[in-house]
């Protein structure tokens, strides 16, 4: 119960500070928009090409944007040493991670859903009929990105060359998420759309394994 209560309080803080400044959401939306638009300039995709390459391009842009969004996650806790204040206050240190990864998942999902209509227009794909299934894929993929990203953000915040460290650590680790999310999205955008359960299962498995690892070892990542 203490874990849940602390997580709720900290999630409230994360949401309040972000919606007050809108720094992360604005930059991430603009970043994804730029990538998606630039890719659309490099070739004039037919419907068939969009179905083949679109999901990969979409998830690559989400992944790059995520590495940008997750960077300040723990970095800004260092400005006023607020991480120490949190560590002194919470009853379960895992609540710090849980609140951050819930907020990161929510922010990622929000920007992805905002970007979907623009992607559909630029790449001439129909998403309306499979929208709920697409949101499920986006959720599982974003959760995986947020879990690993939040953990590595905590590590890289204490390292030298921290701005470079996070993408270097994170992007290779997220290759399985990229592949599974792309395959699942491809299945939904195919001529005969269907939800690839095996890839969804893979994403869910990735999320569970990394969340468990974070729960077991997260406390050590917060130590000085």
């Amino acid at each position, binding site marked *: 119960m*203490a874990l849940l*209560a*602390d997580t709720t*309080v*900290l999630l*409230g*803080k994360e949401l*309040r*500070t972000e919606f*007050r*400044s809108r720094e992360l959401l604005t930059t991430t939306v603009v970043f994804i928009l730029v990538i998606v638009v630039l890719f659309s300039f490099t070739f004039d995709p037919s419907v068939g090409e969009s179905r083949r390459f679109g999901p990969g391009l979409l998830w690559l842009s989400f992944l790059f944007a995520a590495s940008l969004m997750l960077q300040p996650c723990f970095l800004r806790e260092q*400005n*006023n*040493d*607020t991480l*120490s*204040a*949190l*560590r*002194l*206050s*919470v*009853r379960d240190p895992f609540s710090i991670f849980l609140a951050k990864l819930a907020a990161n998942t929510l922010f990622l999902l929000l920007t992805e859903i905002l970007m979907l209509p623009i992607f559909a227009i630029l790449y001439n794909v129909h998403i309306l009929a499979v929208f709920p299934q697409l949101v499920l894929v986006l959720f599982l993929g974003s959760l995986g990105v947020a879990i690993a990203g939040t953990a590595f953000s905590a590590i890289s915040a204490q390292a030298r060359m921290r701005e470079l460290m996070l993408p270097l650590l994170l992007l290779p680790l997220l290759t399985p998420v990229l592949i599974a999310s792309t395959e699942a999205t491809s299945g939904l955008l195919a001529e005969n759309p269907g939800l690839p359960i095996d890839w969804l299962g893979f994403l869910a498995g990735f999320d569970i394994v990394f969340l468990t690892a974070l729960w077991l070892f997260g406390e050590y990542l917060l*130590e*000085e």
Partner: protein
Amino acid sequence: MTAPAFAPTGIRFDNIEKRYGGLYALRRVSLAVAPGECVAFAGRNGSGKTTLLRIAAKLVRPSAGSVKLVTSGSEATDSGERCGFVAHATMVYDELTAEENLLMFAKLQGIAEPRACAAGLLEEVGLSERRKYLVRTFSRGMRQRVAIARALLNEPSVLLLDEPSTGLDPEGISWLANTLRRMRDAGRTILMSLHGESEISALATRAVRLDAGSVVADTRAGSDMHAILTFAGA
């Protein structure tokens, strides 16, 4: 300040050692601080003052040794739970108001009536009228007041202050000295790291000088304390 809700508590450092790779931040520091004592730690930059205080707050794990809180009539317990910690960073969120900051930390600490507690402490530190303002709009002195209020939320019996007067103007230092005096007189044990003599160091009942991670001087005598504090400030 209302009647204390804490038991007078001392703190005992036993052979504390902290290494970062091959570098020693602290070397076998042993120190017993009696309940109600106000100890000023002095020493050059890098002498180990901050590390010692952060170990006492359980923010840093020692490489060897232990820190225990000792309350009269009870067993020694791990430090941290009954400690309030103030660093030279404010440890509060700039993007939240003073009230939101205190309310959040009060809830995290499981305080029964967080709103009343936060309101009381804001009154105590003279920020009631500015409680709805974002902390980033505050002066350094006002931020430090919020920091002190945050550290007092759980009625700590031991207060750890790491260079609490950093960046404060003379008026801010006077306010801090008066506040700490009230806390000391209420029976709180205070451990603080300082640079040189000031209104705040005058509150100390004991001075300890650290050098290269070791305790090199420890006194309760007034004239010796002056020597320790001024040497470190030199």
